[in-house]
């Protein structure tokens, strides 16, 4: 939990730093993006306007060029020759005007008669003899106008817009009219697209559409009406979008870089703060676990340093106090042991002393009953000596209990086997209630000593007989061994102290059996509990940790 809290603190600090780094980005990026958007939109509109201006200029240039070229063609000697031939009644060759058009920037050049019938054509000789609908509407002397003209190729005949002008051939006295101009075809549209760097579309009702150039992305268009056709110039936002994207990318990259640096700085800062706190938390945990010599390294500064120093001082004080308390407890325990030992030793010593004094007095008085007294007293004295030896052995075992040699075993199976060997005193019934297999790690010898002590304790509590019930069971993480008797039980006020050395509720006994059992239980990481059975007898309960069943090879 403390570690989690430590992580939370660190996370909170990191989040705070990230928030601090993101906040300016969240404010500045939208503002900058909007500003960039507006700037580029103005730029796009300006480019579209410039393209439209260029388109208009190109059309003006084309008009001037057509006007000049057609006037020059009308005065060309070859044109005059063809016109004079026409005037004389001889039909000129259908493509006689081709020679006139050579070397001139014209893609329409037609000689028509006064009635509007085409008599020779440089680019559409197949129309000779017909009235070309578009060209017949062009009046002489006017500035170039846009009319639909027929353009022929292998794929068919298409109508395309053309800027044309009509001029009379003076040599033919008005009987021949020259109409020339330039078709605004795909080549012209492509040239205009290159010139304006825009997508150019030229279309109109019945006209073959022509388009060139590209305008990717959002397109801003400008239209130039040209009579029967409409010229549209579109500027795409792709380049602008790319620039804008680059700028935004740079902005976001800078923001991400700042965020990353803020996170690194925040991490380092948070670690600087939380490390002493985490060490302090760990120290508190260690101290709580009994490691009173734990000290937290004195890192950090300021309040954290003061806190660490205070903790170390507190741990040191607590260590001193605990050691003093432990010494006092040990002294008290040894006092109890000594008192018990003195009591146990004194009890046999008094009869011994009295028997010896009686024997000495009889010997001194040369009493004739000395022999009888000696024979009578000697067994009692030997019994007391034996009692002294047992008492001393019991204290010796208590004092010399070695460290437990733990090994995996099944507590239920082991108990069943041990009970089979132990048996019971006459008058005492032994009842076995086995539980499920219980995997534990235990020292077989010490566990046998413990079970022996608990059975002895139960038997001694029932001098007139009764029943001892031994059972095993398990809970979530502990294996339980219970020994229950039908004796008088242990008084409530004695339960707390009955596990202390030298404390006993029986008339005879060293008071070390249950204390030894408690030490054995402690050596197995468990506890020995004193309770009252439902029937009023004593219930002693051993709890030791269970081993995970998987992977543990169990033996009785």
């Amino acid at each position, binding site marked *: 939990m403390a570690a989690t809290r430590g992580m939370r603190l660190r996370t909170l600090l990191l989040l705070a730093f990230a928030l601090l780094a993101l906040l300016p980005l969240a404010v500045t990026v939208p503002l900058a993006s909007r500003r960039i958007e507006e700037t580029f939109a103005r730029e796009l509109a300006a480019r579209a306007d410039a393209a439209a201006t260029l388109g208009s200029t190109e059309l003006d240039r084309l008009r001037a060029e057509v006007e000049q070229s057609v006037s020059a063609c009308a005065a060309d000697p070859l044109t005059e020759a063809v016109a004079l031939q026409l005037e004389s009644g001889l039909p000129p060759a259908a493509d006689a005007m081709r020679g006139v058009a050579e070397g001139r920037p014209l893609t329409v050049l037609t000689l028509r008669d006064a009635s509007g019938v085409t008599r020779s054509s440089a680019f559409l000789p*197949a129309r000779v003899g017909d009235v070309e609908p578009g060209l017949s509407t062009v009046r002489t002397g006017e500035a170039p106008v846009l009319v639909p003209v*027929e353009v022929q190729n292998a794929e*068919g005949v298409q109508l395309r817009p053309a800027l044309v002008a009509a001029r009379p051939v003076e040599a033919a006295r008005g009987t021949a009219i020259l109409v020339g101009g330039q078709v605004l075809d795909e080549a012209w549209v492509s040239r205009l697209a290159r010139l304006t760097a825009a997508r150019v579309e030229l279309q109109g009702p019945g006209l073959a559409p022509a388009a060139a150039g590209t305008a990717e992305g959002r397109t801003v268009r400008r239209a130039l009406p040209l009579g029967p056709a409409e010229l549209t110039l579109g500027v795409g936002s792709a380049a602008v979008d790319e620039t804008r994207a680059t700028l935004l990318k740079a902005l976001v990259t800078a923001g991400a870089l700042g965020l990353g640096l803020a996170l690194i700085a925040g991490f380092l800062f948070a670690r600087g703060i939380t490390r002493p706190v985490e060490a302090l938390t760990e120290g508190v945990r260690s101290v709580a676990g009994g490691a009173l010599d734990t000290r937290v390294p004195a890192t950090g500064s300021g309040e954290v340093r003061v806190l660490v120093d205070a903790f170390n001082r507190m741990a040191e004080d607590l260590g001193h106090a605990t050691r003093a308390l432990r010494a006092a407890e040990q002294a008290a325990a040894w006092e109890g042991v000594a008192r018990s030992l003195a009591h146990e030793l004194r009890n046999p010593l008094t009869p011994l002393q009295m028997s010896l004094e009686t024997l000495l007095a009889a010997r001194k008085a040369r009493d004739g009953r000395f022999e009888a007294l000696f024979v009578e007293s000697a067994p009692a004295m030997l019994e007391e000596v034996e009692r002294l030896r047992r008492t001393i052995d019991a204290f010796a075992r208590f004092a010399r209990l070695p460290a437990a040699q733990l090994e995996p075993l099944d507590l239920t199976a082991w108990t069943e086997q041990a009970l089979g060997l132990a048996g019971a005193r006459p008058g005492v019934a032994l009842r076995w209630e086995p539980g499920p297999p219980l995997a534990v790690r235990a020292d077989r010898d010490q566990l046998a000593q413990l079970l022996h002590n608990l059975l002895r304790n139960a038997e001694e509590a029932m001098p007139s007989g009764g029943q001892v019930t031994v059972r095993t069971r398990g809970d979530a993480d502990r294996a339980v061994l219970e020994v229950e008797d039908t004796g008088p039980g242990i008084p409530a006020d004695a339960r707390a102290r009955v596990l202390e050395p030298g404390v006993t509720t029986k008339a005879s006994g060293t008071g070390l059996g249950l204390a030894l059992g408690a030490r054995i239980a402690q050596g197995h990481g468990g506890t020995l509990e004193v309770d009252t059975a439902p029937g009023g007898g004593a219930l002693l309960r051993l709890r030791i940790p269970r081993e995970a069943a998987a992977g543990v090879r169990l033996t009785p």
Partner: protein
Amino acid sequence: MRRGAILVLLAAAAPLEARAAARARDGGTLRLAVLPEVRADRWGETPEGAALRELVAAPLCRVEGGGRVQPVLASVQRTADGVSVVPRPGARFSSGAPLGTAELAQAWARAVERSPVARAALGPVRELAPTLEQQSRGKAAGLLLPLAHPWPDLEVSLCHPALAPVLGDGGSDGVGPYAPDGAERGRAVPAFPEGRPHPDGFLVSTLARRAAQRALETRSAQVLLGDGGEAAAPALFATYLVSRPQARPMVSLLETRLDRPALVRSFVGSPAAAMPGLLPPSLGGPERSASAGGSPGRGSGTALLLYAADRPGQRAVAQRLQILLRDAGVSLRLGARTPEALDRDWRAGQGDLALRSVLLPPVPAAALAVVLELAGDPGAGRRELAGLGALADERERAARTRERALQLAGALPVVPLYVEGLRARLDPALVDVRRDAFGLWTLDDAWWP
């Protein structure tokens, strides 16, 4: 050529004092200026191309103005069931190979693959392909051509330039008074069966029209091919519009809008004439078309018209037809082809319409045979020709042919458009240039004082 005969004629016709001055002298170079389109006519399918090509690839025989057939490279003899074509001794290709029956059979087998005129000329031959195949491996003295039906005009047909024997696919290894000496020159062949020509050789210059005209005017060229011409000369180079069945409605639309004289005047040029009938006027065909009647209709759809790209007249007419059909609501695409590819693709089923120009034989029945070949129905054509061939009298056959041509005009998928003559001009100083029944000049006798 026939130098002795000419000299005899000259001697008989001219006063004695003039004989020495007018005598043909050997030597010199005949200079020809040709327009690019003439040069492009590799197989001599146009009159100008044929006139040029005859210098190095003479026809089998000549049809003189009066209709008499004069053997040149071979004689044609009638047999019980057909004819036997016997090559003249000494006739050799320019590569040196002698002209035998096998070479002749091979040359004709190739000719019928590319030329409708050759197919029509040899059409009456029974099982033509196997016959030619069989005799292309033999060494008989004469090429035997069994006929499926009587065909009195076969001799005239075999004189067509399209049947001039040529070895290989190059088109230049023929049997002519001159042998090619590079791409632009030819040298006289002394062993030519008709005798060597008077000049030592010829030189061809390919020039634009104006340059060619100037060359003739300045006498740096003696012959101009591709420009000029005589309106009175026989005009047998006929152009037809052939169509598939699905294109008949478009043809009907065209016929209501077609003005043949205007077409000739504006897009073909002289010497040419409108040809309202299947036979040209020079073969007795009608000179004026009957009124189509009714107002021009309108249609829809698209069609592909094939034409010969090397022929300026065809290109201009094709464009005019495209315009006329556009006015009628039909979109016409133009497919330009070389003449060989045009014949091959049309026979393979490409295109809806095609312009076909052919040099017609100078007799009506043989000319109608070519028209029937263009119509693309061999069975019907053979039946028609069998009927005509059964008429032994030449005049009766010609009259019957003209009558049938008028009757077939509306039924065949062939629309006659116009007919052209030889476009050529000569230096007035050139002597002994004669015109044959095809309207072509024979230049191998030419000389100049």
